[in-house]
C-alpha cells in the first residue's frame, strides 16, 4: 500500500511520543482501540485551569497510519482550547494525511482519543471540585 509522504514523515519522525504523569490533576488520558483489533492509541493532554492544552503526548500500537494519525493530532491540539480541540474530526485527519479508505478507522481512533482524553480531564476536575 502506498502511503502519502505525510504519513511516512509522521511515522519516521513521530512528534510528541511519550508519557505524562497520569496522577497529575491537569493531565487527561485517553486510551482507545483494542489489541485484538491491531491498534491501541493513548493520548495524554496537559490542560491548564483556563482550559488551554499546553502539552500533548502519545503512544500508539498500530500500523503506520495509526501512528501518523496520533502524531498529527498531538501537533494540532497543542495551544488550542479544550472546546477547539473537541471540534477536530476524523475527516480532518484523514484528509491531511490522505489516508487510504481501508485506514480511515485510524483517523476515527485519533478523534476518539482526543475526546477520551478531554473527558478524563473533565472527570478529574469535577472530582476535585466535589472534594473542595
Amino acid at each position, binding site marked *: *500500500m502506498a*502511503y502519502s509522504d505525510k504519513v*511516512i514523515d509522521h*511515522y519516521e519522525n*513521530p512528534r510528541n*511520543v511519550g*508519557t505524562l504523569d497520569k496522577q497529575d490533576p491537569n493531565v487527561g488520558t485517553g*486510551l*482507545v*482501540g*483494542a*489489541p*485484538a*483489533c*491491531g*491498534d*491501541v*492509541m*493513548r493520548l495524554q493532554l496537559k490542560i491548564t485551569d483556563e482550559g488551554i492544552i499546553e502539552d500533548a503526548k502519545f*503512544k*500508539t*500500537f*498500530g*500500523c*503506520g497510519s*495509526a*501512528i501518523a494519525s496520533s502524531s498529527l493530532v498531538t501537533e494540532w491540539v497543542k495551544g488550542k482550547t479544550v472546546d477547539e480541540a473537541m471540534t477536530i474530526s476524523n475527516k480532518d485527519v484523514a484528509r491531511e494525511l490522505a489516508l487510504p479508505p*481501508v485506514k480511515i*478507522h485510524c483517523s*476515527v*481512533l485519533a478523534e*476518539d482519543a482526543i475526546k477520551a482524553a478531554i473527558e478524563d480531564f473533565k472527570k478529574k476536575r469535577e472530582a476535585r471540585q466535589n472534594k473542595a
Partner: protein
Amino acid sequence: MKLPIYMDNHATTPMDPRVLEAMMPYLREDFGNAASRNHAFGWKAEAAVEQARKQVAALLGASDKEIVFTSGATESDNLAIKGVVEFYKDKGDHIITLKTEHKAVLDTCKRLERIRQERLDELKQMRLGQLTGAPVSRDNLAELSIKHDLDNDPVYRQWAELPTGGARVTYLEVEKDGRIDLKKLEAAMTDKTILVSIMLANNEIGTVQPIAEIGKLCRQKGILFHCDAVQGIGKVPFNVEQMNVDLASISAHKMYGPKGVGALYVRRKPRVRIAPIIDGGGHERGMRSGTLNVASIVGFGKAAEIARQEMADEAGRLLRLREKLRKGITEQLDMVTVNGSLEHRLPGNLNISFAYVEGEALMMAIKDVAVSSGSACTSASLEPSYVLRACGVEEELAHSSIRFGLGRFNTEEEVDFVIKLMVDKVNRLREMSPLYEMAKEGIDLKSIEWTAH
C-alpha cells in the same frame, strides 16, 4: 551487499540464472508449438517439454507419464480437487482438509460446498412443491422445510444422497505447532470420503506435515490423497511412491523457476482419474488442454533438476542461516515467540511474533528487507492471519507477526544486517507502544476494558 534484501521466498523466488539460460533458446529460435507433429519446430519443442517432464517427475519420485503441466499450483489444486469430486461422484462426496491449507485449496472446497448447498436447496424446493402443491420460493424455504420436516422425509433424504456435483468438507483443526493429529484425521474419515487434501509444508509458518503417515492411512482406507507440495518440494524430502501420494501440486516460481507454470502429479498405478476443468485440444492426455508454455516448462524442468541435485546441501545452509536469524533476534529481544513447530519445519522459514508491535508498522520500519506480515494488514482485509489463528495464536500476537523466508540467494551478511535492523526497529516501536509500557509496568492487558471498533 545490495539493499533492499529479499527475504520473502515463500511468496516467490528469483529465477536462477541457470534456469533463464535454459529457457532462452525456446523464446527465440526454437519457438515451435509442442503439439505440431508435422515439422521440426514442433518436434524440437515437444522433445524439450518431454525432457522437462522427466526432470520434474524425478524431483517427485514419479514417472514422466504422471506429470500434467498447468499454469501454476492454484490451477493444479483446483484440477486435483474438482477433478476428483467430478470423476468419483458416484463413490462419495466427502473431502477432508486442514484449516491451515492455502486459499487455493480452501476456496476450492468452499465453492464445492456452495454447489452442493445450492443443489440441495433446489431439491428441497422441488419436494416442497410436491408436498404443498404450489411453487416454493427461496425466501420461505427454511421455514417450510422445518414445517414439513424435510430432514425426516424419506423422498427428500433419498434425493439428497444422490451426487450433487458439489462436496461436503471437513476442515480439520491443527495442533498448536501447526501439525495434524493423525487420530483426528482417521476419525473424520467416512465411507463417503473420496479425498484428503493436505499440504506438505505451510506457506506461513513452514510446518511440515507427516505426509508418509497420512498417505499410509489414506491408502489403507481407499481414499485418494492430494498433497499441495508447493512450499516444501525441493526443500524437504518428498517422494510420491514412498509417501503414497496420489495427486501433488507444484509450482515453478517457488523453486527458482519462472512464474505461470506448474504441474499436477496424477498417479498411474493404481490409476487415479480426474475430470478436466479446462476443455479444448486434449493436451496433457486430456487432463489440461491448452498450448504448452514451452519455454517456461523448460525452465521449470531445469529448476526441478537443480533443486533435486542441490537440496541436501542447500537445506543445511538455510537451516544454519535460519537458526542464526532466530537466535540473533530472540536472544536480543524479550517477548518474542516463534510460531509453528521448530522441529518439523522448512529450513528457510521463520515466523515470529513481536508482542506489542504491530506487524505492518514493523514492515514499514524495515523497508530495507522484503518480508511478509503475518497479519494480512497490507491487503484489503484487516483480519489477522487465519493460519496463525488456527494454531491458537491470540489475535493481538497474530497482528504482530513477521514471516521471513530465506532462500538460495540469501547470504550470512544479509542475515547479520537483518538481525541488527530487527532489534533496532522493534525497540524503537516498542518505545512508542502503550502496550509495551503497560506490560513492563506489570499491568494485565486482559484486565482492561478495550473499546473494540
